[in-house]
């Protein structure tokens, strides 16, 4: 009996090795380890907190002197107006904008992207420490915190959920579907008809887009969050669903069977999801995520949902998603023409 169990166990492990499932077992812990390392090391890497001051505004001299003299903690930028400062914060050129509080002499209003973000916390902590040094325990210099992002914490997590849905269809469902059609020789059966390769590909992309749109609509209807600019939001959901459906189909073409497609899907899913979704917590992750198409979807969606962003300011991201979609579509077409692993 034991011999049989051992034989079957080794057989299962051999199958896991053959269909590349074993790579998941190695890859996931490695990936999580490196991601966490990047996130954890982020605060020490942020050498200076970038704060903005309004050029002509009148700040309390003690505060101004403290900020300017604490060169090791803050990098101070002067902005011409409150609007310019806020746009710098939105563009992540500043971690926070300091405005003089009108109702308090030694008071500041801190404008940050998110109230609960690491940037906001580090600014408050630094100010608290500096104030302790200069004045001892006193009324806090930061009198109020303003968040540029709208909505509560639920709305702020919405872009992450949307990204998860899009990537789930793109990297998990689509590759497996394509690989299944290849494995069961269904695709080749369809190619016995006068159907053109490009027709099959377009149909597949459309089916992926429908799945993504359905999931996003259900999420939107159930959560009932207000969307600032609806056309911009739709434009990004459409281009994102096109991009990742096409990407997923391409991955499916690289696999001979469903098991390989599932493995490859996860290998792409996590590196696209985690750096983008955690980009708010780490500058290092942000710098990596910038190169990922998932970030090109996540950032605009976040911008549109939380900061009233508009597609006119996000056209580069929109075009880059379209290009990735078109490029992977072209690769899939070439692989299909060559009957790759069919």
């Amino acid at each position: 009996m034991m011999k049989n169990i051992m034989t079957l166990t080794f057989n299962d492990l051999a199958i896991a090795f053959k269909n590349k499932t074993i790579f998941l077992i190695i890859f996931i812990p490695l990936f999580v380890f490196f991601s966490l390392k990047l996130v954890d090391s982020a605060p020490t890497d942020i050498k200076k907190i970038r704060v903005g001051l309004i050029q002509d505004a009148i700040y309390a001299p003690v505060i101004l002197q403290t900020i300017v003299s604490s060169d090791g903690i803050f990098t101070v930028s002067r902005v011409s107006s409150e609007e310019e400062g806020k746009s710098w914060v939105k563009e992540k050129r500043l971690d926070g904008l300091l405005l003089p509080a009108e109702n308090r002499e030694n008071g500041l209003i801190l404008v940050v992207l998110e109230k609960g973000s690491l940037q906001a916390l580090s600014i408050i902590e630094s100010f608290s420490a500096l104030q302790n040094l200069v004045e001892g325990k006193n009324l806090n210099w930061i009198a109020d915190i303003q968040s540029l992002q709208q909505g509560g914490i639920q709305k702020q997590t919405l872009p992450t959920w949307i990204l998860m849905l899009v990537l789930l269809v793109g990297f998990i469902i689509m590759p497996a579907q394509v690989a299944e059609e290849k494995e069961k020789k269904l695709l080749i059966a369809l190619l016995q008809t006068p159907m053109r390769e490009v027709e099959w590909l377009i149909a597949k992309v459309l089916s992926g887009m429908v799945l993504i749109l359905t999931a996003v609509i259900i999420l939107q209807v159930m959560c009932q969050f207000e969307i600032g600019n609806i056309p911009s939001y739709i434009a990004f959901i459409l281009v994102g669903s096109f991009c990742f459906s096409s990407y997923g189909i391409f991955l499916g073409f690289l696999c001979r069977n469903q098991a390989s497609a599932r493995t490859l899907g996860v290998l792409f899913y996590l590196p696209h999801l985690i750096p983008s979704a955690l980009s708010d917590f780490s500058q290092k992750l942000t710098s990596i995520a910038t190169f990922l198409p998932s970030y090109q979807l996540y950032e605009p969606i976040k911008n549109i949902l939380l900061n009233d962003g508009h597609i006119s300011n996000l056209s580069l991201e929109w075009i880059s998603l379209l290009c990735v979609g078109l490029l992977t579509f072209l690769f899939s077409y070439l692989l299909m023409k060559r009957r790759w692993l069919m």
Partner: protein
Amino acid sequence: MLIEIHNLTKVYDADRGLQPINLTIETGELVAVIGHNGAGKSTFLKMLASWHLPDSGEVIIDGIDLKNRVAVARKIGFVPEVPNLFEFFSVEYNLKIFARLFQVPFLRIEEILQEFDLGNFRKNRVQILSKGLRQRVSIGRALLADPPILLFDEPTSGLDFDMTKEIYRMIKTFHAAGKTIIFTSHRPEEIKTLATRVIMLHQGNLVFDGPPREYFQSEVYEKLCLL
């Protein structure tokens, strides 16, 4: 429907695949492609069916290069050894989707269901059908566009005696209707019963091409097929 094959080649590795083959198959011929396992029979047939792309060479179907797949798709019907059907869907759905892609009227589906005695199974999912019934659906699908050329890859493999006889009857009927038929086989009785011409492949090379009577008397048969 004339099939011209010029230097058709497909190499998988050193001793597998198909070495350059030149052939002409005339309209209405019933050709048996035979040979041992790995001789290149299925590869040859699958290249004619556009399943595999050749490394080199060309196939001309009635003056049209096979590379122009869309143009010749209605001229060739292929029945693979293992039926590749949408198993979660019904027999009718399977035929409908292909009828749409072949752009043939749905009336043709009724003809096929009747001709292959599938009427009672039309609403059944393919996955619950027996191998023989699946094979009938697969043949029915290949015939949807009424192609003049039919390719069968080991059509009776794994079928019982009655179903084998049924498949032989079908092939004879198609042949009598003027279709050009090419099938791969291991069975001597199949070759004797059906074929008008035998093509034998050995290690990817064409070693015999002639009528069945000559084949069974040939040196190749004695050397390669007799114990």
